[in-house]
């Protein structure tokens, strides 16, 4: 074990121990009965105090993932290709749980006020679940960002100087009624051969990832401003705009979840890849040809494989390729 590895594990142990100690201290304070606050305000303090520990724990878990990622193989014996690491799949579902907790409760807090209605359960329970979801999201975000940063992961970003190529690819992927106006505006000829798709589609890189990043970044920053208002005197106008933008980001996320589900359900192999980590060779060859060519291994031999999914240029049996965007 190198000195760097030992130092990394030491940091992980220290952050975990600090996180556990922090959680114990926060919960003992909240449960002591000595605090004068009502349940809602008490939960707000618990959440606010937990944020630094959650972020630190997320960063260290990202460090652990960085170590584990090197051991992931890229090809299966049947030729299937790994699209996501097991860690990415695990954290994808963890952050999904966070959204499932935080989004509906956030929507209720907002709509309850607009419609002037009350739920049969106390409002502080909505806040409590909302904070739990937000905590999970913060933990996952810290882990994802650390992992991507350390791993030099840039495959979801449009490389410098490649925007025009990606917009051309997007115009080809979109349905004609959306792609044609975009192509006309950008001076792109849709009769020309479209650029080949890499590991991620043009829609994922040009629309999905930027949309997720802006919406999650906005809701995180504004949520942190809202959470710290009891610990630090946040000026009224700042709090007003933080609250307004928090709701705007919530709507952006509601829309993005709907769009993400629509997009991936139409490309079923992408859904199964987010569970199994693998994409069938035939699907990759058809839908991600530029990525396929970069993958080396014995299964790359041309010609049919016995019982393999990539034996021909047609879709593997039972796999719905879906329409390009």
């Amino acid at each position, binding site marked *: 074990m190198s000195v760097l590895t030992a130092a990394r594990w030491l940091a992980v142990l220290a952050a975990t121990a600090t996180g556990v100690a922090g959680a114990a201290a926060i919960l003992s304070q909240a449960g002591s009965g000595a605090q004068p606050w009502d349940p809602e305000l008490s939960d707000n303090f618990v959440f606010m105090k937990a944020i630094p520990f959650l972020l630190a724990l997320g960063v260290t878990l990202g460090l652990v993932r960085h170590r584990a990622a090197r051991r992931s193989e890229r090809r299966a014996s*049947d030729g*299937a290709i790994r699209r996501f690491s097991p860690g990415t799949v695990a954290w994808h579902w963890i952050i999904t749980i966070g959204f499932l907790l935080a989004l509906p409760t956030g*929507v209720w807090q907002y*709509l309850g006020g*607009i*419609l*002037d209605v009350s739920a049969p359960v106390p409002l502080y329970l909505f806040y409590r679940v909302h904070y739990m979801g937000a905590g999970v999201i913060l933990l996952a975000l810290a882990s994802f960002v650390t992992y991507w940063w350390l791993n030099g992961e840039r495959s979801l970003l449009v490389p410098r100087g490649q925007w025009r190529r990606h917009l051309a690819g997007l115009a080809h992927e979109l349905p004609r009624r959306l792609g044609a106006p975009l192509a006309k505006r950008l001076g792109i000829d849709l009769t020309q051969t479209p650029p080949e798709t890499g590991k991620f589609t043009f829609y994922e890189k040009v629309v999905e990832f930027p949309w997720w990043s802006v919406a999650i970044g906005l809701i995180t920053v504004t949520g942190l401003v809202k959470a710290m208002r009891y610990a630090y005197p946040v000026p009224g106008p700042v709090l007003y705009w933080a609250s307004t933008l928090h709701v*705007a980001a919530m*709507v952006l996320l*509601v*829309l993005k*979840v*709907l*769009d993400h*589900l*629509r997009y991936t*359900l*139409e490309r*079923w*192999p992408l*859904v*199964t890849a987010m*569970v*199994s980590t*693998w*994409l*069938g060779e035939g*699907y990759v060859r058809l839908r991600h040809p530029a990525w396929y060519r970069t993958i080396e291994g014995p299964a790359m031999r041309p010609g049919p494989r016995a019982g393999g*999914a990539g034996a021909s240029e047609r879709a*593997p*049996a*039972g*796999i*719905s390729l879906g329409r390009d965007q």
Partner: protein
Amino acid sequence: MKRVSGVLAVVWAVANLVLAYFFVTGAFVAKTAAKEGLAAQAALLLGGLLIGAFAIVLGRQALALLRSPQPAER
């Protein structure tokens, strides 16, 4: 897995249609106009319409998924 995903997506789409309805109707409630102002009303209306449109598209996709044959998992 495909059927379960399709059913869950239908449920999610329907829940979002209900949400869209509350957004749109909330835009025309007198209290919103008095308390939040025109900008908030417009935002609620636009947000509601967009959520409704996206939910319909997802619902159609989910139903198409339910009608399609069971796929290979890879």
